[in-house]
């Protein structure tokens, strides 16, 4: 099936727009605090990376790996992956078309898993509400982070691998 030139342009334009938007939100998502926790009145702000380091230092390698993979690695892989798909189309690299489809399947599969940290923060903030003794609340990074996930999913959904054959 051949896509019309107009449709091709629209798909490519929208995919770039979603990807660039995700990339823009990626920086506040990673540099602003994801969660604010407090113990005995002392508040502490945690970014995603500082959370990973905290669990790694305290020997919780499993949690550190899960958070690192879901919250840092997957968003990067998704953004790089979509850019790679768009470059395959732009440079008409025919021998990479099947690789492109495999990458598309992977991006499609991993897309939603980066939302993990948003759900963990939401759950913890509703549970840990002990006033002065202990509290947890979502930090300002939660919204840009959720937007990174949403825009990378939109970019993947919008991209059409039939572009490689058109």
């Amino acid at each position: 099936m051949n896509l019309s030139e107009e449709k091709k342009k629209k798909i490519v334009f929208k995919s770039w727009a979603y990807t660039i938007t995700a990339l823009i939100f990626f920086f506040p998502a990673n540099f602003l605090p994801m969660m604010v926790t407090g113990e005995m009145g002392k508040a502490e702000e945690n970014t995603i990376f500082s959370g990973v380091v905290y669990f790694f230092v305290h020997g919780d390698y499993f949690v550190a790996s899960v958070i690192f993979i879901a919250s840092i690695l997957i968003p990067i892989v998704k953004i790089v992956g979509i850019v790679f798909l768009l470059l395959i189309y732009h440079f008409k690299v025919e021998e990479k078309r099947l690789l492109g489809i495999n990458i598309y399947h992977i991006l499609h599969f991993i897309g939603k898993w980066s939302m993990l940290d948003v759900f963990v923060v939401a759950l913890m903030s509703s549970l840990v509400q002990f006033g002065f003794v202990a509290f947890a609340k979502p930090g300002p990074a939660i919204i840009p982070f959720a937007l990174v996930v949403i825009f990378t999913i939109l970019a993947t959904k919008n991209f059409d691998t039939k572009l490689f054959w058109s």
Partner: protein
Amino acid sequence: MEFKRECKYCGTIVEIDKFERDTDYLCPVCKSLVYRMGQPFRYVLFLSLTSLILFLWMLNLPLLSVKILGIERTTSFVASLGHLIATGKFLTAFILGLSVIIIPYTMLVIRIAVIIAVKFKAISPYVYRLLSLYKLIAEWNMTEVYLVGIFVAIIKLRSIADITVGLGTLVFILFLTTFYVSVQWFNPDDVKIFCDNYSCEKINELMCFEGNFNES
């Protein structure tokens, strides 16, 4: 009778020679899955109804309880969502509510409604629209991510508090099991493919036939 399906990844037209369960029709060019027939609708209906009951039951059940210095706090799906709304985290509440509560619920309701419509041979354009909506929202369902989120929260909190896993988490696991089996067993394209290639009069065959379908 054979029918044709276009591979949605590369556009190749693939000929499918018969309705055959447990056979994956792959695209000869890109090896992507082109068509897999769903399981009999009566099984999907049974699982969907079970999922729906478990889903409605779990919403208010306690997921986790945390105890610090003798003070205990419990949360559920609804309480977690309510807390986000009460603290002004509307976008997070919207994402959580949509991807973990509204979408799975809508998927279940659509599936049940479509199967009942098939049972009573009430196939209309509305059924196809519902199926299109089903395919559109299915990709935004994130219930399994939330389950992993519960486990990560347990591991994170165990060093500072006593954690008790509530009945809600167990019901949630049961719900996810039935929900995902029913998602795998239900192919939303089957109704249209069947009506286009055979006859909507014979649509009830989708409810119960278990082998290969041979037109008589």
